[in-house]
């Protein structure tokens, strides 16, 4: 049997994403060989109902996104609700600054984020990661977060500098804030 077929079998069996090193060890092959096999497998699956994904630091098979409706009907899975903006902001802060404490999240958002943190924890996207030196609970993201967001790892998050405003935007904001400050009541 060809290596890509063996790899396909192993991924079919594994409930969790499997790393290249683990696959190489199981197949008694080199990681380079496994990488090539994964490439071939990905190509072979191009017009099939199963897709190969690299998530949470490993490889796994998933159902095709176009079969989502049918999959949910078959398995009676409710559609996962989208994130609210408060949840998304909280998650973004945890993802980029982890491990990060609740007060820090509240400081950046300017509003207490308890309920967003609780919901994200219940949904398994973030978890407690001990306490800071000041005794505040600190949070980090979970492997499930990487899986659900299709991230091969935390380093697959885009550079946060990418979200910084352009110098023009920044100048405009400053201008408007200053104008607001000058229009003080007499």
């Amino acid at each position: 049997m060809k290596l890509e077929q063996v790899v396909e079998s192993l991924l079919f069996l594994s409930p969790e994403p499997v790393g290249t090193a683990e696959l190489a060890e199981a197949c008694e092959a080199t990681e380079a060989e496994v990488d090539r096999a994964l490439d071939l497998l990905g190509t072979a699956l191009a017009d099939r109902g199963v897709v190969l994904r690299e998530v949470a630091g490993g490889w796994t098979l998933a159902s095709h996104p176009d079969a989502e409706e049918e999959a949910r009907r078959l398995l009676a899975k409710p559609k996962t609700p989208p994130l609210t903006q408060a949840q998304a902001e909280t998650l973004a802060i945890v993802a980029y600054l982890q491990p990060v404490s609740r007060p820090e999240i509240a400081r950046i958002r300017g509003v207490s984020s308890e309920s967003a943190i609780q919901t994200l924890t219940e949904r398994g996207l973030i978890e407690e990661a001990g306490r800071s030196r000041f005794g505040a609970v600190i949070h980090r993201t979970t492997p499930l977060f990487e899986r659900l967001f299709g991230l091969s790892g935390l380093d697959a998050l885009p550079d946060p500098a990418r979200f910084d405003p352009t110098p023009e935007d920044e100048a405009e904001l400053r201008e408007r804030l200053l104008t607001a400050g000058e229009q003080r009541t007499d």
Partner: protein
Amino acid sequence: MRPAELDLDLDVFAGPFDLLMTVVLREEVALAEVELGEIVIAYLEHVEEQGELDLEAATEFLVLIASLLELKSRLLLPAAEEEELQMAPEEAAEELLARLLEYRRYRDAAAHLAELFAAGRRYHYRSAPLPPVLRRVALDAARPAYDPDLLAASIGDLLRVPPKPDTSHIRPTVSLEKRLRVLRELLRSRRPLDFDESFGSEDKLTQAVTLFALLEMHKRGEATWEQDALFGRITIEAR
């Protein structure tokens, strides 16, 4: 300025910075002109229409409007009366700007994550557990390595809960009065005192009570103390 003209749907804002940024970036509205009271009234009407009070939403609104009030008042308060405490408007605006920009970075990162999530949640992963024969440790396949009776006899005592040790003879040995006396003694020379130098070798409880004693002396005006930075040196001086 009525909120109707502002056309703010309060439910959609994720926090005071979000609301503030929207207000500030709106061409026709200057922050100074935004009547926050009107926003409160609009919210109360909104609550009345709904007929029931969502405690969580109401709490978030309170926090939001309070923060907004604080931010706005910083921009608007006349500087003359509280010269020392009042920041220059430029300074206040710069501080606000820094916080807004920091917030904005994560708001936009959040939008990106929400997109990833929307794309990612269409994939479903296999959720079946491994067949038992392939599990690394299958309970059915486990065989006892030791005879259970022999094992129980050997480690049985370890499983028993020992009686609680009697601690009634231990009393706290650090009293506030004693630490006050030590501090006063040390400060009698009128030379400034370094906290770590004087008490660094004491145990934590003693250090803590000494700090309480210091608070007490500060309250009574017997001593002052300074600490320039977080975890920096504490210098104590008699007054």
